[in-house]
């Protein structure tokens, strides 16, 4: 049997044949640098996931306010704390990809105390409630009237997201890479949020609902995480804007 080293035949447990040394060196350099470069290119091509996060560092937040249903549960804060001021409107969600509608519906229009952990991304925030009555329970007192200010019909461009991941439960919490997660959250009844390209009446985040103030229509799920334009009625509830979208105007932008 001839010596494999003479013929440049690679055998893993033998020294590298001289005829193959240059070739293997070139392949190694190309492979390592190429993969590193490819990884760097892919990484830099991604959008900045932003600074949203669960604010466990704030500790448990407990505030009191009036429960509203859009139908997604909101709390119009009447007794706040240092993190959540009075007058603020909080979107409410359950743990994971769940909602708190069953717990909030009996308290609609009433004063309630809510408790949980905040998610925060810039001006956008949400409260993930604790389980059961620890998360939301009726509070003593008479609920003050809470006004809603209609702002008319608007044509907006932006992205439909699930509010919880966008607020910081996931990073990235928006974009195509997050579409499946966003749709699962929306199926779970997590409040959806529309991110506008530019501020509407001072805010670029709007809670988005169906045209009749109902849940986000399922036809909108196909458009989640894509850049779209749509029309709808906008109203202000405290410091939160609510967009009642018209699904017939949904259009994917080029």
């Amino acid at each position, binding site marked *: 049997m001839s010596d494999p080293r003479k013929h440049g035949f690679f055998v893993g447990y033998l020294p590298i044949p001289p005829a193959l040394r240059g070739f293997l060196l070139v392949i190694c350099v190309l492979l390592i640098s190429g993969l590193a470069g490819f990884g760097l290119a892919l990484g830099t091509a991604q959008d900045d996931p932003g600074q949203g996060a669960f604010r466990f560092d704030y500790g448990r937040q407990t505030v009191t306010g009036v429960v509203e249903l859009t139908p997604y549960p909101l709390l119009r804060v009447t007794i706040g704390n240092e993190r959540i001021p009075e007058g603020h409107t909080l979107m409410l969600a359950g743990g994971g990809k769940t909602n708190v509608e069953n717990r909030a519906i009996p308290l609609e229009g009433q004063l309630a105390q809510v408790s949980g952990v905040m998610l925060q991304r810039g001006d956008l925030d949400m409260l993930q409630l604790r389980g059961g009555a620890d998360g939301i329970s009726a509070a003593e007192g008479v609920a003050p009237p809470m006004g809603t200010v209609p702002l008319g019909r608007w044509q907006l461009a932006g992205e439909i997201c699930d509010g919880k991941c966008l607020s910081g439960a996931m990073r990235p919490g928006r974009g195509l890479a997050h579409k499946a997660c966003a749709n699962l959250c929306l199926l779970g009844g997590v409040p959806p949020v529309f991110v506008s*390209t*530019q501020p*509407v009446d001072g805010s670029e985040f709007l809670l988005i609902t169906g045209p009749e103030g109902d849940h986000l229509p399922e036809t909108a799920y196909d458009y989640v995480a894509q*850049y779209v334009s749509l029309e709808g009625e906008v109203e202000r509830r405290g410091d939160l804007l609510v967009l009642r979208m018209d699904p017939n105007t949904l259009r994917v932008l080029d």
Partner: protein
Amino acid sequence: MSQAEAILMGLRVWGGIGAVVAAAFLTIGIDRIDADARGAYVFRPLLIPAVLVIWPLVLWRWYLYETGRVHWHGRYDPPRRSHYLVGWLLPIGICALIVTGLLQRQSWPADVAPVQLSIPTEAVE
């Protein structure tokens, strides 16, 4: 029907046909084409997941064996004949997919400003 429902429906139809094929092949077909399988049953449920996925291939191979068109020696052909082509097509295809995805990606329409189409009804009154 939404895109997600269409994908789910497609998977259900594919899996449903696969279940029928698995039931027929693992109870009848396998005894007809593989003498070594006759009288052996415990291993058959283990094949169900694979048949659910590749049932067209199972049907095709079953057909070849039943009609005597199978070339038994072909089973022992080394597959490397096609490896060279596949070896190039696979990485090129993956790179092409990634590059196409990046090129097709939407850009954030930052220049599209919100437009108020109508003022609130209450304001009109």
